[in-house]
Each structure stands twice: as C-alpha cells, then as structure tokens.
C-alpha cells in the first residue's frame, strides 16, 4: 500500500519522536509513505484565528500538490493537519467558485478529491486480524486510557470518523493486541488546550490536569494519544501539572504507534519511547 505522506510541522520539529514511531510501524507493516513534495504548513489555529482565507488556502495548496502528483490517499498523522485538509477538501468539493478561487491563489488546479486519513485509520486499513497475526508480543499489563482529544472526531460532519462523543476505535485496536484499555472514563474527547501550550499555559494545565486525573481515577496506568499536541500537553507538561495541583500522576504517555510498534516487536528505542518526559518502563 502506498500513501502520500504529510508529516506537518510538528512531526518535523518538536514531535520527531512521533514521526520515528509512525515510520517504524509503517516500515514493519510494509506501508509505503511518499512525502509530498514541497508541502506547506496547514496554518493550524493561527490561520483560522487571524485570516480565514489563509486557513483555506494553505491546506488547499497541499491538496493541489497531492492531486498533481497523483496521490489518491494522503496520510497525515497530526489530527489538526488531517482535519484541516479534510475540511478544506469538502469545502472545495461543494463549491465550484471556491475551486476556481483557490486554484488561482495556490497556482495549481485543486478539486478536493484526495482522501485524507489519520493514524487510527491507517492501522484499521491494515486490518485488525492482520495486525494480531503479525504481533510477536502481547500488550498484557498495559491499562491505557485512550485519549482522542478534539480533532480526531470533530467536526463530525467532515471527519465521519468513529463516535464523536464516545469513540472506541483505539480501544478496539489495542484490546486485540492484548492490552486492557479503560473503556469508561469521562475525558476521551475533552480538549487539552492544544495549540495554546505557549500562548496560555495556565489554561492548558487546567484542562490537561482534568484529563490525566480522571484517567487515573478510572484505573488507567498510562495514556495513549494519536496527536503531537496532546502528547506535548499530557507528557511534557505533566511534571508542572503535578507540582501545581499537588498530585502524583505518573502516567506514561504513549503514541498509538508506540504500543502497536511494541506489539509488532519493534524495540522501544527505535520507537523513541525514551524521548518521552514521563518515564516509560518498557
């Protein structure tokens, strides 16, 4: 299987660990990733807070590149990127005048026909049976709380992925690989503060504390995420959160690809699990 690959800025910068982990899994599974030539940033929160036209044009440029180079499917491991690409793709499909306008702005024809998928969908595409057949290690002993955050499931009318209030696809995947995910807890899709990590640190700590402490209360011994920003807020900020709220949390935060990778027999170092801030005993 071959996908156009859109790493996005985070995976090429501070979330290099996520990129390594994803790539190691794809290699093991024989999924070929071809990085989109000269891709540009999706604009993230900044573009749609300041200039909505730009928030449409930036993802449109990346979609135009995918169309030009003949990729029917693009894999974007960052949910903010994949959401922006999918949303703009749908807007383009719906409006001829927008297609004309955007093709002019991004200087290439863009129609929005590319299918964009997230990390969970990539694993689902491989097939849960195929994954379990290839697994060399059972994930027993892991009791993760799977945290979806905002943009894996929202906006539901664009993403059409899982149940936007009570998703379960990561749990299904990990349970098949032998883990015992915590199914019932309250903050699966609550926001961690995402892009405000630097701009409004207090809000991020308040929100992330609720997520972590609730997961712990419901019996989780680690967290699983599929988003670079969720990882920064729950992992890197965890010690500051513990200090501020005077509560020991001690919850390792794995990317979904970390645990799938371990099950597939990839070692922790290759997956860059040692780069995480909260110590992971694997």
């Amino acid at each position, binding site marked *: 299987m071959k996908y156009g690959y859109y790493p996005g800025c985070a995976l090429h910068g501070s979330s290099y660990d996520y990129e390594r982990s994803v790539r190691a899994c794809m290699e093991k599974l024989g999924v070929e990733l071809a990085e989109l030539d000269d891709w540009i940033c999706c604009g993230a929160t*900044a573009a749609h807070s300041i200039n909505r036209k730009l928030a449409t*044009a930036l993802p449109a*440029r990346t979609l135009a590149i995918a169309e030009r180079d003949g990729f029917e499917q693009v894999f974007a491991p960052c949910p903010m990127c994949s959401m922006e690409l999918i949303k703009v793709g749908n807007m383009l499909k719906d409006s001829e005048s927008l297609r004309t306008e955007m093709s002019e702005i991004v200087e290439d024809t863009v129609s929005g026909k590319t299918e964009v998928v997230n990390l969970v969908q990539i694993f689902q595409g491989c097939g849960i049976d195929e994954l379990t057949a290839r697994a060399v290690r059972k994930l027993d002993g892991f009791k993760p709380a799977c945290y979806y955050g905002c943009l894996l499931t929202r906006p539901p009318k664009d993403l059409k992925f899982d149940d936007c209030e009570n998703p379960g696809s990561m749990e299904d995947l990990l349970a098949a690989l032998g883990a015992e995910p915590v199914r019932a807890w309250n903050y699966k899709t609550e926001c961690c503060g995402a892009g405000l990590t*630097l*701009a409004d640190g207090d809000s991020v700590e308040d*929100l992330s504390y609720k997520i972590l402490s609730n997961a712990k209360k419901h019996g989780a011994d680690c967290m699983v995420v599929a988003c670079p920003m969720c990882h920064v807020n729950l992992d890197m900020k965890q010690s500051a959160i513990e200090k501020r709220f005077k509560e020991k949390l001690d919850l390792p935060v794995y990317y979904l690809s970390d645990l799938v990778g371990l099950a597939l027999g990839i070692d922790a170092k290759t997956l860059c699990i040692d780069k995480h801030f909260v110590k992971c005993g694997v």
Partner: protein
Amino acid sequence: MKTTTDPDIALVEEIAHTSVADCYQCGKCSAGCPQGQKMDRLPSTLIRMVQYGDVVEASRSAAVWQCVSCLTCSARCPKSVDIAGVLDALKQISIRRKTVHANYQRTVAFQKAFLEILRRNGRTNELEMVVLYKTLGFFGDVSTNPLRSIPSALKDAHLGPAMLLKGKLHVKLGGPLKDKALVRRIFKKCEKKVES
C-alpha cells in the same frame, strides 16, 4: 445564508459561513465548553450579542481569545450553528477593530508570530517561534500590562534546555521549502481578499 442587512452581523456570517439567526439559545454550546468556567461571556451569550448586532462589544470579550478552538460547541449545536466559526470571526474582528481584550494580547502575539514564520518559511519552526513570540509578547505586555511582562517572558524558558536534552527541539528540521516565494504570494493574495 444571508439573513440580515446589518453589516456587522453580515461580516460575522460571511467569515464563519453560518447563520446566527438559527440559534434558539438552548445553551448546549456553553454547557459543554471546556473554557466556559473561565469566560467573561459564554459562547451562547456571544451568539445572542451577534444576533442583536452587538458585534464590536462581543469582540471585546476575553472569551473570544479564551476559546481553544476545540469545536465541541459546533459539534453539539442542535441548530448546526458553527459557534467556533463565529468565535473565529470575532477573533478576526477584534484584531481589525483593535478590541482585543487586554489580558489576551499575548495570545494574539503568539498567533501572529506563528503566521510570520509561516510566511517566511512555509513551515513553522518551534525554536524560532518561541524567540519571536517571547519578544512580540513581551512588547505587547509592556504596553498593556507591564507588571506581568517579565515573569511571562521567563515562564517557559526552562522548557527550552529540557526539550533540547530530550531531543524534542531539533535545530536541524526537515529540509527547507524549495518554493518559498509561492508561499509569500499565497499570503499576499489572501490578505488582499480580506481587506477588500
């Protein structure tokens, strides 16, 4: 989509691609908002103010910039109002009309720094962003809130070295963009559209 002759309401609806008149004030958006407890005005209150044409006053709210764009409100609205889109419109209006709440100049500085780097490079780079943002935010604070400016400039300084140690900050990022001029042209065209 056009439900109004009031130019301010029309501007919000045009930016947000949604009809604020559809809101019947059930309050569901506010009930689920993760930032609701902190807000000076709730999302449903802001929608009500926009319905009345009180757009500029609404744009002064701290809530506009306290919003974390989580999209919970828009996903749950029984009338399909894109509340998060309306808040984005209010963000943009608050910048244009200079009505950004005094405590959130820093958030705006951050978003602007992000876009400046993007305009130059086509991609963002955390290291550059932290530096640019801290300087922009510092000056923004000094003019509005001098007492807060120094501690805030230092606040995340400790994360830099720790991130470097962990290999979290990569000085050498993925290869640079080949066609940076195209990105600048895209910015220019989009900015022109907004002005007109």
